[in-house]
């Protein structure tokens, strides 16, 4: 199992502990608040992912160890929590694995069925951008 798949399993197991929507959201909001700081100079138009109702900024760098590290932020806290969840899965992985990853965890954790179409489109756009960075920086 790849690191990415293993981390997805972890997230799925974590969310099984939260049976109600409130607990899930509480956790997501918490994750949003804990997301590491976003470099101010990167908070610019070209780093915004279009397709989200709130603003999402995403950048990526290839570090010396050859792995890809993402920075992200959002002006909405729930989105920020979602972003945080994504980065936990994708951060510091090889580009080839990011490109190849199967994104099944969103449906399994029982958040996606609660999401609006706008939110789902936003998440899809986010995953696409993460994979694009994975491809370009591999």
């Amino acid at each position, binding site marked *: 199992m790849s690191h990415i798949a293993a981390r997805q399993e972890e997230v799925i197991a974590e969310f099984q502990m939260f049976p109600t*929507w*409130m607990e899930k*959201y*509480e956790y997501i*909001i*918490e994750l949003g*608040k804990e997301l590491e700081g976003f470099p101010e100079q990167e908070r610019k138009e070209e780093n915004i992912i279009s397709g989200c*109702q*709130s*603003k999402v900024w995403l950048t990526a760098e290839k570090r010396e160890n050859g792995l890809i590290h993402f920075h992200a932020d959002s*002006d*909405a*806290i*729930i*989105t920020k929590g979602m972003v945080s969840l994504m980065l936990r899965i994708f951060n510091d992985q090889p580009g080839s694995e990011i490109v190849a990853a199967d994104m099944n965890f969103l449906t399994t954790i029982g958040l996606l069925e*609660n999401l*609006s179409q706008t*939110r789902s489109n936003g998440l899809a756009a986010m995953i696409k951008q993460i994979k694009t960075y994975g491809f370009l920086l591999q």
Partner: protein
Amino acid sequence: MSLDQDIAHIRKEFPILHQKVRGASLVYLDNAATTQKPQAVIASISSYYEQYNANVHRGAHYLANLATDAMEKSRDAIQHFIGATHREEIIFTQGTTDGINLVAHAWAMTHLKIGDEILVALSEHHANIVPWQQVCKKTGAILKVIPLNPDGTWVADWKTYINAQTKLVSVGWVSNATGVVHPIHEMVEQAHNAGAKILVDAAQAVSHFPLQVAQLNCDWLVFSGHKLFGPTGIGVLFGKLDLLNAMEVYRTGGEMIKKVSFEGTTFQEAPLKFEAGTPHIQGIIGLGEAIRWFSNVGWEWIHKIEMQQIEWMKSVTAEVKALHWIGESERKTALYSFWSPQFHHADLGELLDQQGVAIRTGHHCTQPLWDAWNMSGTARASFALYNNEEDTVQLQKSLIKSIQLLIG
């Protein structure tokens, strides 16, 4: 009967309201986006397809006559409902946006020239901005904008924005972003004094108070059927008859012609002149039924319930002080736009949705307004005549719970 009993009675006529959303009773407060449909409207559409579906106007048979008759009866119902002088002044469109585009193409494009001014207000819906920008691009006319006070009303000196160059005023009667009711009667008078034509966007007004277009004396007025308990995809353009007949044609094709030859084609008079192709027959029939249903409820009662909803909401806005409530003007509909500098309106909307409360979040298609106010949008709760006290109680509870979650 008490008001509560009356609302309960009305609610029974809306099948969609009686459902659970994510385990909670649905609280539908997105009526400025679209209203729900009473059983009578739904049934009218079914019975059209079950009993008399046929193409209108030219059919030489029994069903075609029934369909044509039903369609034209809807036109009569609308004429009566909005207080127009002639039935020919009622043009069926796809909706408000389509009606504005019709006037932009069939009148403004050919009547305006370089230096002429079109006047709108800052709070206009994009549908009442973008068509005029296109007109300006083609004709060299200039788009002028009335600024707003912080409460969403037009600035006190709005009359000074009308001058000899003003050829067209196109303004929303009620703002979909703030719920503020603007002084349209005065605006019509001012526009006409300056020799300008005036189009009124009544999309957010039509289900709140009588339009009385002949008395209002506006040149055009537009609204959508789906915001008046009717189907989507159908709307109305009212225009003064002589003006409609003097306008250019917009879409061309079947039914709107008088005689077609390769040497030249002549056109019908209004309204058929503007209704090319097979119309949205089921939509027209559904809208006619919606108007009959709505008229049956009556303005007196509709006004009473809206005043009551505003009263209920006074306690909500007073209780939920963590939010900023926009548009607290004296003349407004039961539409509440709110926001907080501490959290995003999208977060609020998502958490309310989890609790079965349907509202709208975002820019509400009024981006220039939010740009001017340095905001990204709001969350918006908008009422219709079936919203009861329980809805406001649930809204308040869900707001408080959402805020608690967000602040943590």
